[in-house]
C-alpha cells in the first residue's frame, strides 16, 4: 500500500530524514518510536506535503502512485490522512462547515453524491459520540479554544468521517489522560480494516497496550534503525533508546 524508499528530507536547510525506508501493507498497523528529533513528525508532514518540507532524495509510492508529485489535497483524496500532533486553530471557520466541506470533497472524489444536511448531521453526531465530544464542538471554530485532548479527539473524529486508506497518527496519544487515551485507542481499533493501514507515531509504549501493532520500528537519526514486532516496544520501554543509538553509531 505504502512504499517509502531511501527518503531524504530537509526543513529549513537542515537534513532530518536521511534514507528512511518503510513498507506498509494493507490492513497493517505500524508503530514508529524514537527519541526526540529523530524525524518522526517530519515523516508525517512529508507524507502530507507540508510546505517547507523538502524531499531531497528517495521515493514515496502510495497505492501505486507517486505521492511526492501530488498536491496536499490530492494526497488526501487518494486516502492519506495525517492526525496532527498540534492541530491548527482556525477561528471563524466552524468545525461543522469544515467537516462538511471536507466530507463533500472526499465523496466527490470517490464519485459519490454529497450527503444531504440531515445525513451529514447524523454522521457527524455519531462521530462526536464515538470520540466523546459534545455536539457543541461542531458549532465552534475549528479547534478554537479546544483543550489538548479535545483537539486530538477532533482529529480522530475527522479520521472517522473521512475514512482514509492510510492514517498517520502523529503523537495522538501525547498529552492525553488515561480515559482519553482509551477513547483514541478504541476509535483506532474500530477503524481497523483489511484495506486501511495505520502508522502510529508515539513516544510511549502505553498506547500500544491498547492498539496492538503488527510492526514496531525505531527511528533514529532520520532512518529506521530497528524493526520488530510488539515486543520491541517493550524492550524500548525497559532500556530506552540510548543502546540503539550507540549500536547505530
Amino acid at each position, binding site marked *: 500500500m505504502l512504499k517509502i524508499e531511501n527518503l531524504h528530507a530537509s526543513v529549513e536547510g537542515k537534513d532530518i530524514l536521511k534514507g528512511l525506508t518503510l513498507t506498509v501493507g494493507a490492513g497493517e498497523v505500524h508503530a514508529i518510536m524514537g527519541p526526540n528529533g529523530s524525524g518522526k513528525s517530519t515523516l508525517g508532514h512529508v507524507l502530507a*506535503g507540508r510546505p517547507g518540507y523538502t524531499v531531497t532524495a528517495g521515493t514515496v509510492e502510495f497505492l501505486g502512485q507517486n505521492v511526492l508529485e501530488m*498536491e496536499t489535497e490530492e494526497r488526501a483524496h487518494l486516502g492519506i490522512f*495525517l492526525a*496532527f500532533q498540534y492541530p491548527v486553530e482556525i477561528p471563524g471557520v466552524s468545525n461543522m*462547515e469544515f467537516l*462538511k466541506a471536507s466530507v463533500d470533497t472526499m465523496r466527490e472524489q470517490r464519485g459519490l453524491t454529497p450527503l444531504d444536511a440531515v445525513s451529514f448531521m447524523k454522521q457527524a453526531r455519531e462521530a462526536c459520540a464515538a470520540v466523546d465530544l459534545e455536539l457543541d464542538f461542531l458549532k465552534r471554530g*475549528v479547534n478554537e479554544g479546544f483543550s489538548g485532548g479535545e483537539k486530538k479527539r477532533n482529529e480522530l473524529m*475527522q479520521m472517522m468521517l473521512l475514512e482514509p486508506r492510510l492514517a498517520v497518527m502523529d503523537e495522538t496519544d501525547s498529552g492525553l489522560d488515561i480515559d482519553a487515551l482509551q477513547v483514541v485507542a478504541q476509535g483506532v481499533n474500530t477503524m481497523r480494516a483489511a484495506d486501511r493501514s495505520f502508522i502510529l507515531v508515539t513516544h510511549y509504549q502505553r498506547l500500544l497496550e491498547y492498539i496492538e501493532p503488527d510492526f514496531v520500528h525505531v527511528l533514529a537519526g532520520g532512518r529506521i534503525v530497528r524493526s520488530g514486532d510488539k515486543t520491541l516496544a517493550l524492550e524500548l520501554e525497559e532500556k530506552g533508546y540510548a543502546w540503539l543509538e550507540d549500536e547505530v553509531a
Partner: protein
Amino acid sequence: MPNFMEQALDYAQSNAPVWLQPTVSEGRQLWEKQALPTRKTEAWKYTGVHNLRQPYAVGESTAVALKDLSLSLPDLDAHRVVFINGHYRAELSSDELPQGVELVRFAQATAEQSAEIAKYLGTIVSKHDHVFASLNDASLTDGVFLSVAPGIVVDKPIQLVWITASQTAAFTTTQRLLVLAGANSSATVIEHFAGVRGEQAAFTNGMTELLVQAGATLEHYRLHLEEGAAMHVGGVHARLLANATLNSFHLALGSVLKRIDVVVDFQGAGAHCELNGVYLPRGEEHIDYHTCLEHAVPHCTSSETFRGIVGDSASAVFNGRIHIHRDAQKTRAELSNKNLLTSTRAEVNTKPELEIYADDVLCAHGATVAQLDETALHYLRTRGVSKAEAEVMLNFGFINEVVDGVRLDTLRAYLRPLLALRFSRDPQLARHLA
C-alpha cells in the same frame, strides 16, 4: 472652495423647504469657506478626494422600477423606506409604521414637525470638524426624521434604503437621517446603501445623526453595498445620554471611494457602545473608516472591532480614535482592528489612537496586518479541501466572527451568502458557507 458641487447647491437653495433654508444657506457659506482636505490634512492622509472633482448633475427622480435596477432588496421583515437617486419612492416603501414611531420626511414636515427636527438637526455632528457635513447641510432638500417615543419597544426593524441608479452623467445625491430614540425606547434601524453598477459616478454625501436618550437601546446597521464607480463620503454621528446603549454595525464593500466617519459622543454616565465593522475592498477600490469615541463622562463602556480584507490593488484605511476626557473616570474601552491582505499589491493603513486624560480607566487596543495563515490553509488541504475553497473559507472565517455578532437574524442570513460570494466568483467555492 471648488465649484464642482455648484449645481447641487443651487438646486438645494431653490428646492429646500422653507424651514430648511437657513440650514442650507449656512451650510453653503461654511462649505465655501472651508478648504477641501488634501494629503497634508492628517485625517485625509491616505484618502484622496481628487476623484470627487468633477461637475455633478443633481440626482433625477427617475421612473426606474426596482426590478429594472437588477438589484433585489432583501426581505428583512422590516418597515421600509426607499429613496432612488435621492428621491423618495412611495411605491417601494411601506406606508405603515409601528405605534410610537414617527417618520417624517423633511420635504413634508408640518410646521410643528419641522420645529421638532430643527431642534436636533445638526446638533450632533460638528460642521466645523467635518467639511462634508457642511456640504450635506448645503445640499439638503429632503431627509428623514425618525423618532421613537419614550418607552416604546419597536419589534420590527426600520430599514432605510438609498439606491443610486445610473444616470446619463455623473450625479450627486444627499442622504440625511436624524434618529431620536426616546428615553427607554428600543429600536432597530438599518441604513442600506446600494447602487446599480454604471459607468457614471454617483457621489453620495451621507450624514446620519443618532440621539440615543437616557436608557434607550438603538441597534444600528449601516451597510455600504455600493460598488463600481460609486463614491460615498459621509458618516454617522451619535450622542449617547445616561445608560443609553448603541450597537452599531458597519459594512462596506469597495468602490472607487468610500470614506465613512463614525463618531460616538458619550454624554451620559453608564452609556455603552458596541461598534463593529467589516470592509472588503478589492480591485482598485478604496475604503476609509475613521472612528472616534469621545468618552466625555464617567462610567461608560465601549467595545470596537473592525476587520478588513484587502485584495488585488485595493487599499483601506482604518483610524480608530478613543478620546477619554479628564472627567471620564472608570471608562472601559477596547478597540481591535485586524486586517488581512490577500495580495502583495494590497495596502492598508491602520492606526489606533488613544488619548487619555483620566487616570482611572481600562483601555486596550490593538491592530494587526497579516496574510492568510499558511498553516491553516495547509490543514484544510490535508482534509481534501481544495486550495481555492480553503482560501475562500479562511477569508470568510476572518470576518465571520464579526458577522456572527449581527443580532438581527434576517440580516445575518442575508449577509452571509452575500459576503461568502464576495471571496469567490465561483459559487461552488462558497457552497459550504452560505
